[in-house]
């Protein structure tokens, strides 16, 4: 059944026999796959294949009906999203989330995990520690914005930038959380080609620096160029997994996309 089981020595994310139904619809139907450390793994499939549901299950937003999710060898099945994030798995959303009333760099500063200033008592017992970490985080945020070549936006209201820039900011912010594996839900949907190219370069750069990616994308050219391997999802289960080349020529994948059914 699950042909996605390529041999994977060092999986940062392992999904085993995951199931989720909404009423009578099996949105995730015994899905099994793994993401090898250091890869950019693509997750594709026709509309309604259950890609976003799978993301929600992995990141703890949905509770699975069965099966397990492991991050770095730790079983995170049924954990709260923040607990999954603590294991090093961070996700972004399909539609960019706007933070009203914040500037871009302020919105970036939400990213770092375990900030001392996030404890109410520390604010009053040791404001020095808070100031120190805030300075460090601010410097880091500005450095990352520079790397992404959007440092000119730092003091702009986070709601006033374009959709594509928002996607860049989201990616940049996710990096501040220092993820080991980053789940991107359609990073270039609705983004103009220039920015999409930029995003691709950034993802590749970050991957070379050691971040593992799992990304959902409908833009075939984008995903085929960037990701390897690619996992194909259809009707809630893993149809196949392989190189971009292999997947592109797989008859079952073509059938699935043309609506032939699995």
């Amino acid at each position, binding site marked *: 059944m699950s042909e996605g089981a390529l041999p994977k020595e060092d999986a940062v994310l392992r999904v085993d026999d995951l199931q989720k139904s909404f009423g009578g619809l099996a949105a995730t139907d015994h899905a099994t796959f793994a993401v090898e450390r250091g890869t950019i793994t693509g997750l594709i499939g026709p509309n309604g294949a259950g890609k976003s549901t799978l993301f929600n299950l992995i*990141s*703890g*937003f949905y509770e699975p009906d069965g099966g397990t999710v492991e991050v770095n060898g730790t079983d995170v099945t049924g954990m*709260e*999203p*923040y607990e999954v*994030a*603590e294991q090093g798995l*961070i*996700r*972004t*959303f399909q539609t960019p*989330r*706007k*933070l*009203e*009333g*914040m*500037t871009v*760099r*302020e919105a970036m*500063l*939400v*990213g770092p*995990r375990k*900030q*001392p*200033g*996030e*404890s*109410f008592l520390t*604010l*009053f017992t040791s*404001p020095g520690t*808070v*100031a120190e*970490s*805030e*300075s460090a*985080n*601010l*410097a880091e945020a*500005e450095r990352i914005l520079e790397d992404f070549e959007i440092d000119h936006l730092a*003091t702009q209201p986070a709601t006033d930038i374009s959709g594509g820039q928002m996607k860049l900011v989201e990616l940049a*912010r*996710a990096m501040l*959380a220092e993820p080991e594996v980053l789940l991107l839900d359609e990073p270039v949907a609705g983004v103009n080609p220039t920015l999409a190219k930029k995003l691709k370069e950034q993802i590749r750069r970050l991957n070379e620096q050691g971040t593992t990616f799992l990304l959902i994308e409908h833009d075939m050219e984008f995903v085929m160029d960037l990701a390897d391997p690619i996992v194909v999802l259809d009707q809630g289960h893993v149809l196949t997994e392989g190189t971009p080349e292999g997947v592109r020529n797989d008859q079952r994948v073509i059938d699935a996309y043309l609506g032939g059914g699995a």
Partner: protein
Amino acid sequence: MSLLDDPKAAFADLSRPERWVLGVSVAFVLFLLVAMLTGALGPTYFLFLVGLAGMYALLSFGLNAQWGFTGLINFSVAAFFGIGAYGTALMTASGSPIAGGFSPLVGLAVALVVALALALLIGIPTLRLRADYLAIASLGLAEVVRLIVLNERWLTNGSAGLRGIPGFFDGWPVLSTFPEAMPGLRLVVIPGSPVILETAFWQAALNVLLVLAFAGAAYFVLRRAHRSPWGRVLRTIRSDEDLARALGKNTYSFKMQSFVLGSLIMALAGVFYAHLNLYVGPGDLDPITTFYAWVAVILGGSGSNRGALFGGIVIVTIREGTRFLNDVALPIDPAPLRLLLIGVVIVAVMRYRPQGVLPPQRELIWPSAVDGGGTPETPDSGVRERKGGDDDE
């Protein structure tokens, strides 16, 4: 203080609405001073009004910490206010059916503990759910608390209320006898209309001191919290809770902290009220208090601490200012006029300035981090202190 060195620059740094509010506040304070000197406004009554303004400011601070920061919809402001008032009254009042006679400090502690327990009680089941559930539950809670206070006579004296509450400073060294010890003063600034300061005035001055201490402490705590990473997580939750969760924030815990903090500040307002009024009754738990607090926060600008302060003062001005209209022949009674005025104000604000009069507008990053980062942003602490000072008068 950069303000003292260069008041012009500090003024130029203000936004237009800030200048406007500053101007109106100064004019208003001058107007009150003139009214006092000419004898139109008794100084003791004036201090009572300042006390009330501080009380409403506390209520709106509390609601701002919940709704303005985190987006928690709490319709039980009156309940937490009432818990604060009854908490201390039951401990200290001579007419208390259960305890009574304790020091007001014990009353304060008990009020805060009961408010904390109530906040946890309502927060634990609802804060994990969507925002609207808290709204519904808090609406019910307010009624439940009010009905318990009204009907459980063995505990609360029922509709008779609690009498014989001591002043907050009773039993303290120096301060408890301070009003009697102060000489009666007779100030003649304008010939023919002397201003007389007597024991009642000094008593009222003590109350103002108390509310300034409460409100000042609350403001200090909230301002620091608002600009911190803690406050930033709350604002993220307000905009998009899922984003905060995805970035590894335990949103349930943050929402609970925000809810408890706000509830304690509301209870503080109740404690002050009990020792100001020296009587509490079930009528003090009427939902109108909740309504006033919401109007104050929305009017001032949700999420803004100084906005909440401003809103609280406006509410008292409308509530008490309309009493003076009794002397003027009007086609309608002042009482319904009061609510009408508040309605008109809120409609006008929503129509012309939906973000409120003084919304939070500068970016909120821990001050020293921004200074240290070498960014050319002017820190606004001096300006805010100045504003706080002006509004408190």
